[in-house]
């Protein structure tokens, strides 16, 4: 079933992109990657992924700005945003709580938990 589900991984760390890509491909997802926020924004716009996994601290365009820029797209086609971050302050936690279809996972994260979150989201939406 997940074969046609696109998942975009945005992280400036190649190792993290690599491991998540492998994990999600093993589960049958179609995986896209971007090395910074700007690249990620263009990919979201072009590919309309079902799930976006993004770091917060990134060059060119940080995760928060990226989410704010892409949030209007969710009205057309909702998608899950998973924010992965090493440290989250109360303001950021509050901000994420108010964002539509957005969750966060603290680093170091478990790839299994990410997969669980994605599957739960897709199940809830019957996709």
């Amino acid at each position: 079933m997940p074969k046609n589900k696109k998942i975009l991984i945005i992280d400036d760390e190649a190792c993290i992109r690599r491991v998540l890509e492998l994990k999600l491909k093993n589960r049958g997802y179609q995986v896209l990657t971007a090395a910074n926020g700007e690249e990620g924004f263009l990919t979201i716009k072009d590919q309309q992924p079902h799930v976006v996994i993004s770091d917060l601290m990134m060059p060119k365009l940080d995760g928060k700005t990226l989410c704010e820029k892409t949030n209007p797209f969710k009205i057309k086609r909702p998608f899950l945003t998973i924010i992965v971050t090493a440290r989250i302050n109360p303001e950021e936690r509050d901000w994420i709580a108010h964002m539509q279809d957005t969750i966060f996972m603290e680093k170091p994260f478990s790839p299994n938990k990410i997969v669980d979150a994605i599957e739960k989201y897709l199940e809830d939406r019957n996709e």
Partner: protein
Amino acid sequence: MKSKTIGIAFFVLILLGLGIFLQILIQTEKRAAVENLFSKGDHIVGLLSLNSIKDFEGARRDLLTKTLMQSDIHQGIAYCFVHDQTGKPLVSLAINSIATEIPYNIQVNSLAAMGLVHQFFKPIESTTGIYEFSKPIFEKGEKTGTVRVGFKLPPISILSTERIALIGVITFFIISAIIMSYYGFVKAFKPLESFLSNVLNNPNSSGAQLKNSSRSFGIEPMMQDCKNSIKELKNRLEKVEMKNKDLTCKLGIIRFEKNQASHILNSINLGIIVTDLHENVGFINDHMLNLLKKKRSDIIDSPLAQVITDKNFLALISRQQGFENPTGSHCFDITFPNLAPDKTYQVSHTYLTDDSKSLIGKLIIFNNTTREKEAAQAINDFTAHVTHELMTPLTTIKSYSEMLMDGEITDAATQKEFYNIINTETDRLSRLIKDLLNLSQIEMGSLTLNSGRVKSDWLFEDCIETVAGAARKKNISILRRLPDNFPTLIGDKELLKGAIINILGNAIKYTPENGQVVFELSEDESMVVFDISDNGYGISKEELPFIFDKFYRSSNSNITSQQGTGLGLAITSQIVSLHGGEINVESKPEKGTHFTVKIPKKEDYLAEK
């Protein structure tokens, strides 16, 4: 005795008054008589001059003369002359010998005049003067004669029956007024006298010393009482003046203290506003005025809402909690975007009470906390960076090991790749921790230099040896440029090596394959100079000022694709400055970068120490 004198004085005053009154009366009568005379004279002369000169000749002259004699002589006419144009008198009427007493110049003036003339003269044997009125007779535009009429000033009589009666009435009223005033005065002062005698009979009274004075009522005791009263008033005035001086002194002290307090409040590096209960500004210090860029006179007594218009500020200042807990104070942050856009102020707001704990106003203090905020922000940013940098390799290690443990990686090559990544990330983590510790020790000043003699050629070769492997992998050649004599320097060999390796390692890391790195050692008068240049990706002009900042990494994708902690150059620059050296950089994108590190030579270093 005194009353007699006063009586005489009154009498003299009355006489004087009467004299002045009579004098004024005479003057008024005189003025009225003269005015009457002028009017009459003008009238008669005017009437006579209307006649033709022929009317004064022959039989007609006799008729006129007769008329004049009958009707006007008793009205005070002294003489009447009518002259023809040659000056020859045609009519000549005069009482007694007065015609001979008219001065010649009066006659000449009258005959020569072409209009109405008034002249006055005094005959030699007469007590009253004579006014002469003359007017020429004109016929068909030509002067045909002159009429001259002399009038005696009528005697002034002030003692007519009516006047005597009037004077009598006035005198009666004056005398009656004096007598009535005297008795009225006596009656009016009676209560005062009885009051004074009561006061004098009272042994506690200040006027007790006057006990022996005469009790009989009259002007003298009254004057004495007045004197005593004046004395009493003087005493009181002296006491009031003393109190006034005392109050003036106290006022001076209060003013001085107020000025001192104002000076203190103005020299404090805090903005201060004091308002009354209605939130009108009662005091504002210089610091706050500078911040608001306003004049004190424009602000004092103005509502606070007009002085600071920020809505959040006004809402927070007017919070009702303040009245429930009037002794408490409240703090909040505020910015003034138009006046001081880069600054943050912490506002503390306290209710002021008087001795009876009644609210009298508010004290609002503005403390510039921009630096504290910036420092807190810097710490926050640093912590965020450190956490991010530490968590990233940890995430890699955790996720890769999880994948391996779950048996998701089945082929041997990928498994090996994963183990290598875990190993590399562990090294990265360890290097990062070491860098952080070094940086922290340097910044805290707790790093001790293991200083010793360092031969520059050893340092040079050691550095090259460390990076040679990485250079070989990318087929990058390292060109050595060495001097004939190698200088010696004093320092911590390991730290200096670490610093130079950071630069040399970056040169290799950020130069594409088959590139070239030049490493040159030289010396100038006081320094040993290490020049490291490459033909790599270079650094843009915008990014160059930040490369020594902690965790700063270029956004160039050629650089971000390489692993790095963002701490290497920050540590290098700290180590160089610990050794008293300097570090400079020049770079052009896509052309390459040139770092120069200068460390003081042995002699200089020792001399400085």
